[in-house]
């Protein structure tokens, strides 16, 4: 089955690496994967998004316009992509930065205060991992183990001390689902 | 010393700290909060100490700073 995920937020929120970790993990698990970044027209700062496709079969189009899952890390992202999610899809909302509820009724939604949780963990930069943890709790797209393995490959040796922090963030994210 | 007013248009500020770095009186600090662009804007902490040198405005790349002076008749 093909699953397509749209991840969107500010530049600097780790949008791109969240997507890359997912496809990396998918690949480790022998799945077909694709990742496409898209930077806003602003050259500096501004918004960014990436789309992820994970599938058991070869992927026709990796260009995601009707995602199964949306991870919205900030307000403009939700505004931009809310309506594009497939009927019956799932939206994960970073409620630390997004102050509104979604309008649609035909999708499932989870509100995760990712920034707050990450700050509690001592590093706001793992907010993306919190979201990822939440997502993987709901949809077993890839295994947490694969994510950790991917992280190990993606992070340079000198940053391996951050692995436990990331693991924690994933866990916290998963736990947050319970609060929804 | 003439009376000066230095004002910051916070919404334009990108928090680069060039003004702060340039101020000979050390009276510019970065705010704890962030503006709409997500930056901690610069602001004056002890306006009365300002000598009106204009260094802050000269260095500001984003035209955040406006300086007014009391006209000396």
């Amino acid at each position, binding site marked *: 089955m093909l699953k397509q995920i749209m991840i969107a937020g500010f530049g600097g929120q780790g949008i791109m690496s969240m997507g890359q970790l997912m*496809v990396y993990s998918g690949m480790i698990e022998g799945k077909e994967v694709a*990742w496409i970044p898209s930077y806003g027209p602003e050259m500096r700062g501004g918004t960014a998004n990436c789309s992820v496709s994970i599938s058991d079969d070869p992927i026709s189009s990796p260009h995601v316009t*009707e995602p199964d899952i949306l991870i919205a890390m900030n307000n403009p992202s939700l505004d931009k992509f809310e309506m594009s999610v497939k009927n019956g899809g799932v939206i994960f909302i970073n409620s630390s930065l997004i102050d509104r509820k979604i309008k649609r009724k035909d999708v499932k939604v989870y509100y995760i205060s990712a920034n707050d949780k990450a700050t509690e963990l001592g590093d706001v930069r793992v907010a993306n991992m919190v979201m990822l943890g939440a997502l993987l709790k709901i949809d077993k797209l890839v295994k947490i183990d694969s994510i950790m393995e991917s992280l190990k490959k993606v992070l340079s040796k000198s940053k391996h001390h951050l692995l436990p922090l990331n693991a924690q963030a994933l866990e916290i994210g998963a736990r947050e689902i319970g609060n929804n | 010393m003439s009376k000066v007013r230095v004002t910051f248009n916070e919404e334009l500020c990108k928090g680069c700290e060039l003004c702060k770095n340039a101020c000979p009186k050390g009276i510019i600090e970065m705010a704890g909060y962030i503006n709409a662009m997500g930056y901690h804007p610069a602001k004056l902490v002890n306006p009365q100490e300002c000598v009106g040198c204009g260094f802050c405005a000269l260095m500001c790349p984003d035209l955040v700073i406006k300086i007014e002076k009391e006209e000396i008749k």
Partner: protein
Amino acid sequence: MSKVLMKGNEVIGEAAIKAGCRYFFGYPITPQSELPEYLSRRLPEIGGVYLQAESEVAAINMVYGAAATGVRVMTSSSSPGISLKQEGISYIAGSELPCIIVNIMRGGPGLGGIQPSQSDYFQATRGGGHGDYYLIVLAPASVQEIADLVKKGFDLAEKYRNPVMILGDGMLGQMMEPVDFGVETSGDSFDKSWATTGKNGRKKSNIVNSLYLKPEELEVHNRELEKKYLEIKSKETMAESYLTKDAEIVVAAYGMTARIAKSAVDMAREEGIRAGVFRPITLWPYPEKELNAATVSAKGVLTVEMSLGQMVEDVKLSLNGRLPVEFYGRVGGMVPTARAIFEEIKRMSEKFGGVK
């Protein structure tokens, strides 16, 4: 070798290395800068040369000089930069030198934008430069195919002593997919006795040149080029057909657009519309025979491009009036959605299709 996850642009670089290319001359431009950046790291590691030229004009002429010495060499750019290379490309074609030129297209004309586009198709396939010449134009649709076609491209370039263009869009260049580079190769098996490397005891000097002041001689040269082009046309076309066997509506598209078209066709099939995708892999030579074969059962052909309609001319020329050809395009960096293409298929199927 096992699969690795890489960006399309970087894969172009690594595939070139795997094909024995050790020389790259380029000039930065979005959305392909990952490629020169990658090679600026990688090439020195393996004794190769990465050189940032002062401009695209200089870069293509460095490639001309390097290619003349018989090495595998590559350059890359995006639309405006490719325009600047046109004189040099014409020289390389006229002097019959092998090389790879990469164009990761962005929106135009002029400065345009930096988002994906396919609006340099004419330039690539009809010779944006002067004179009668053709580039071999390869259009990969996946990161894996990039790797395959870059390798194949070097071989074709050397087999025919003709420049090869890899034509992709910004999306393909930025996309990450797993890729397997396969075995390493090199151009050593190709004859390089023509290369200008110093006479080294050779009796006659080698000359790389495209000037023939006597029209009789230039015509002979042009006819030889023509012969070569005809040979390439007859031997080197490549295309993929997806569900075309029974298709009433065939979508013709290349590169990333073809993959989106596949999704659209999947949607159509789900609704019982017999649709298929014809994807040329060589844009020049255009797979005319393959297109005709893929449309035997077709009632109409829909050409989809990220342009105002360029490849559609080749589709029409190939079909020569045999089938109605319609066009759907998005431009300026806008990417056609599978749904929009599906709607077009549906419309055409209602217009031309048989009873379901």
